[in-house]
């Protein structure tokens, strides 16, 4: 009797433990599910602002437009229908606020009750017109043609050069500037942090005596724990003004400021991991090198560094991964201009910073919201790949050792 109840409670506990250990897996699955459900939803949307219609004269040969074309039309970069495969007719823009150019307040009516009729008439009479208005003014007997929009394509998103999700009439969701901004800032950070971090790790692991190491190592580990928002704040009050003065720039919030702060933040990680890697170099191997008459320095760069190269690589890649995903510090110092950067001395905007800055203003479920989730998907995939690479490198190392 007692043994069977013991068995039951043992089983119950084991079940509980199993459930607990599957929570992380479940979370990853849920993250993928939620992120991709919202993110991929972007591609069933059209670029036109929700609740609005684009209409043209019914004789117009053009019946389908892309988001980018629509934007260029309203930016007056495209001024003639023949550029879009239509007849030679100049394009006449009509936004709702332009109505007063055509009709008086009386004609529209006190409560806009004649407004649909007025818009309909305009579309009927002007052959080159393209009008943008809320779909509640679209009536059954509308004397014009509604323009159809294809859903947003992968190409528009990945190759698009402009990120302006709240643009009228068509949101621009090109992520190239964000992707490039993220890469520039992260690469800058790693170029800065890797040589410096590696040098410090070599010093700590191979040159400094035990006492110095026992003081510096915990200190560096401690600095890895300082919140990113504090680093961002430091960047904002110290590094940003410094860069502005040093390079005589209009603003100091630049990609460079982001790289420097991210580099500083990546240093503890890089130092700790590569120092650990160097420490695994067998003592006998170092001694063998010294016994052959190699100097300590020769031993370091000919034996220790090659031996620990996979750990160092892992540190570098992990550093990049952290930099790519880092949000707050970057948000605070890079200036967040969504333009394709030409140099690190310009404001740039990264993917995480974009999500952090815009999600609060994006209505849930809308186009903008979905676009930000799509950015989250991209970020998730990038960091997942980076983690898998790091794991692959370190597992290969283990295999080599055994």
């Amino acid at each position, binding site marked *: 009797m007692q043994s069977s109840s013991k068995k039951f409670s*043992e089983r119950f506990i084991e079940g509980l433990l199993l459930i607990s250990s599957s929570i992380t897996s479940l979370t990853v699955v849920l*993250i993928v599910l939620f992120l991709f459900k919202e993110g991929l939803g972007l591609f069933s949307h059209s670029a036109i602002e929700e609740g609005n219609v684009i209409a043209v004269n019914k004789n117009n040969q053009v019946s389908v437009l892309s988001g980018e074309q629509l934007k260029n039309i309203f930016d007056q970069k495209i001024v003639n229908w023949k550029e879009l495969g239509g007849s030679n007719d100049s394009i006449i823009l009509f936004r709702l606020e332009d109505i007063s150019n055509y009709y008086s307040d009386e004609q529209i009516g006190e409560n806009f009750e004649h407004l649909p009729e007025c818009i309909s008439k305009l579309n009927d009479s002007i052959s080159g017109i393209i009008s943008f208005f809320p779909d509640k003014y679209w009536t059954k007997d509308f004397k014009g043609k509604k323009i159809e929009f294809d859903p947003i394509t992968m190409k528009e998103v990945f190759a698009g050069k402009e990120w302006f999700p709240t643009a009228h009439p068509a949101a621009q969701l090109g992520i190239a500037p964000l992707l490039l901004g993220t890469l520039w800032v992260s690469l800058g950070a790693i170029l800065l942090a890797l040589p410096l971090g590696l040098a410090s790790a070599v010093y700590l692991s191979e040159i400094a005596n035990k006492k110095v190491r026992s003081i510096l190592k915990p200190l560096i580990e401690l600095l890895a724990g300082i919140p990113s928002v504090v*680093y961002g704040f430091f960047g904002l009050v110290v590094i940003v003004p410094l860069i502005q003065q040093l390079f005589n720039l209009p603003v100091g919030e630049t990609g460079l400021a982001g790289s420097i702060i991210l580099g500083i933040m990546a240093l503890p990680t890089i130092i700790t991991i590569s120092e650990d890697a160097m420490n695994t170099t067998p003592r006998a191997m170092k001694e063998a090198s010294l016994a052959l008459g190699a100097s300590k320095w*020769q031993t370091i760069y000919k034996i220790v560094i090659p031996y620990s190269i996979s750990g160092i690589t892992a540190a570098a890649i992990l550093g990049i991964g952290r930099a790519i995903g880092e*949000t707050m510090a970057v948000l*605070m110092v890079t200036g967040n201009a969504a333009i394709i950067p030409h140099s690190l001395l310009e404001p740039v905007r990264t993917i995480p910073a974009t999500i952090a800055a815009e999600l609060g203003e994006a209505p849930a479920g809308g186009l903008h919201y979905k676009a930000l989730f799509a950015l989250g998907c991209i970020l998730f995939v990038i*960091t997942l790949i980076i983690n898998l690479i790091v794991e692959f490198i370190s597992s290969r190392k283990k295999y080599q050792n055994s």
Partner: protein
Amino acid sequence: MKLPDENKLEKLKKRRQRIAFIILGTIGYSIVAILISILTFIIVKGISVISWDFLTSMPEEGMTKGGIFPAILGSFYLVTGSIIVAFPIGIMAAIYMNEYVKHGTAKKIIKQMTNNLAGVPSIVFGLFGMALFVNKLGFGDSIIAGSFTLGLLILPIIIRTTEEALKSVDDTFRQASIGLGASKWQTTKNVVLPIAFPKIITGMILSIGRVSGETAPILFTVAAYFLPRLPHSIFDQAMALPYHLYVLATSGTNISESRPMAYGTALVLVVIVLFTNLLANALRKYFSNKVKM
């Protein structure tokens, strides 16, 4: 072949080594100096702002005066909440992985997934927390939504440190207990966990430091820009230290006048991290001395 002149060569090797060591040492020390100076900067700028009033009163006059009490309290709630979420699950998961399944595909998958979760950027946690807890489960911007999000964020850390703690327990303890007829769970509960306990606690303390500084995950799940009152329940919004610092630094009503407030808040955050680290280190030392005796 003429061998290189011994003395000349050795001199050259010595000189190269000296130059290399000087460069490496200089870089090493300057890096440490930079890191320390950041810390010092925050401490020096913040120390004059810190006072009892600053820590215990509400923000006033557009957050340019007064204190940061609601942010401290909010962070406290979030730390407590996330630990309640993550701790039992994390420890149980680690026990399962270390004590119950030693090998096999299941363990590999769980390990891989835990590593994957650890690598997810914190802003993605923010997105996920918003989609699941705030919108889908209808918690709204609330302490509970934030606690769950942060809890999931630190779960991999807790699992990892607990696993390490359990691994450090010598197998002979387990064998002795099993040999006396104890079941697996009895062995784990009565023998393994008590021995591993100090290391587990150290892991918990370090994760407190981590949670109290995380900003991105709470942006859209709990954090309030400004709340003129304290939260009423766990379904209420709350202010939090890191987000408050962000607001003060970048989007307050009057950034230059709220700068001292920002320095003070930054210092409080730094002190929390310093304190948790020192405490963890002290505990580590205390327990290891005790074991030696």
